[in-house]
């Protein structure tokens, strides 16, 4: 009638001396592994896709669309883009894909983002794999030491992500042209870019650092009514930070994929007007 659970051999975590002697590392009966597995798979897919595209150094421009992975394009080896984000700050010595120059910033922003941290700590490092499921690591120091102490730099990356989002907005404006750079046109790509930039902004502004900067750091909201209102708005967005993180991740990849399909001639941009 009883299921014996001998005082276990290992003596850490939930099996520490003094705690209820239960051999199982967890007793969850639901599919707790589904969420971290799906997270890991999703992130992995993006990493693989974006690595390929970032190193490809090709097929990132199909007038009037520039892939968000390559904008702004900061080296001389960039494809010339009419009125586009060609700023040759790095001159001619840069021989690698120009995407690598700029992707550092959005990548750093997402890598230090409070949501993504949760996602990859759980999904990749199993720290913890799920709530009340014992993690496999022998010791844990969290974000108290280098390198994870650097997660505190999230705010720098937020500051950097703002101009990047600004430039992508500019790129989106440029999509209201046709392939001959005539203004007043739009195609399916324009729509995709619009959706993407909306999601990028929503994700960027819903950031916890942003919420803190606009008002969270205040002690007396009543003395700063405008910032209080901003904080309230950002707070509302912030509640959907996870949703925005995923949807903007997907939209930016789709944007790039769309440009790739156009640039390789696999697909023709349907024009609305």
């Amino acid at each position, binding site marked *: 009638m*009883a299921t014996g659970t001998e005082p276990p051999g290992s003596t850490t975590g939930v099996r520490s001396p003094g705690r209820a002697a239960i051999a199982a590392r967890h007793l969850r009966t639901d599919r707790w592994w589904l969420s971290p597995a799906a997270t890991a798979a999703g992130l992995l897919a993006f990493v693989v896709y974006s690595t390929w595209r970032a190193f490809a150094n090709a097929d990132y421009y199909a007038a009037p669309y520039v892939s968000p992975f390559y904008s702004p394009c900061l080296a001389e080896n960039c494809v010339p883009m009419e009125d586009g984000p060609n700023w040759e700050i790095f001159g001619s010595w840069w021989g690698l894909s120009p995407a690598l120059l700029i992707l550092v910033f959005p990548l750093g922003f997402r890598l230090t983002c409070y949501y993504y941290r949760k996602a990859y700590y759980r999904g990749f490092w199993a720290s913890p794999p799920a*709530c*009340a499921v014992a993690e496999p690591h022998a010791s*844990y120091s969290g974000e108290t030491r280098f390198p994870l102490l650097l997660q505190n730099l999230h705010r720098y990356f937020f500051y950097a992500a703002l101009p990047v989002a600004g430039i992508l907005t500019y790129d989106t404006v440029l999509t209201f042209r046709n392939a001959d750079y005539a203004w007043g046109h739009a195609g399916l790509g324009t729509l995709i870019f619009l959706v993407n930039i909306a999601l990028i902004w929503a994700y960027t502004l819903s950031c*916890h650092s942003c919420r803190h900067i606009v008002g969270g750091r205040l002690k007396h909201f009543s003395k700063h009514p405008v910032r209080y209102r901003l904080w309230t708005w950002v707070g509302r967005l912030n509640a959907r930070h996870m949703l925005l993180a995923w949807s903007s991740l997907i939209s930016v990849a789709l944007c790039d994929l769309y440009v790739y399909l156009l640039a390789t001639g696999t697909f023709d941009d349907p024009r609305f007007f």
Partner: protein
Amino acid sequence: MSTYDARFRVWRGDVDGGELTDYTVEVHDGEVVLDVVHRLQATQTPDLAVRWNCKAGKCGSCSAEINGRPRLLCMTRMSVFARDEVITVTPMRAFPVVRDLVTDVSFNYAKAREIPAFVPPAGVGPGEYRMRQEDVERSQEFRKCIECFLCQDTCHVVRDHEENKGAFAGPRFLMRVAELDMHPLDAAEEAGLDRRRTAQEEHGLGYCNITKCCTEVCPESIHITDNALIPMKERVVDRKYDPLVWLGNTIRRRKTT
């Protein structure tokens, strides 16, 4: 009224060891797990140890783990389980066990003592306190806490690493630091106490890797991670890592001198 026999597996034992013991017990419509535990006491195991008080989700006494998930026994309805499911009930596994479902939660009371209390503002007498609703709302959310310690139980920082208990206050008490730091009239700073610095250096805020299990288990639905821990981390950044804030402070200091 419909009744059925449920299969329960309850951990019985004490610090010297124990085991999951199987029981078959009658369940009536509309009951919660605590009702079933009480029926076990009254009919089969009069000495089954369990803590409980209000049975209305307001006191936070009956914390335990049901099918491996930290929950309040009184807030877990039997209707969420299939009738043929075996329901496993164990004590909280982050704390030393006392007996059966009762654990020694003194860790939490020790941590509570380490958080410096509210510092009243100088020169403001009783009855003279003036605070706006929007200024108190953030801290009020944290004061909904019923101290069930489920967040402390689920937090892997101490659940999976006993050795971190000394350095880490746990979500409940880091939230208490946030509550006081956001209290509109707390005068800790004037009294020379920097709650942000101590959050990082003395209460182990850096151990938190914001994986949100505390928020997931909170029976009061307090947004512990988003509204207390992350804002607290950001406040620490203000103090220690932000270049613009540093620049602003330097300029202001120059102006005043």
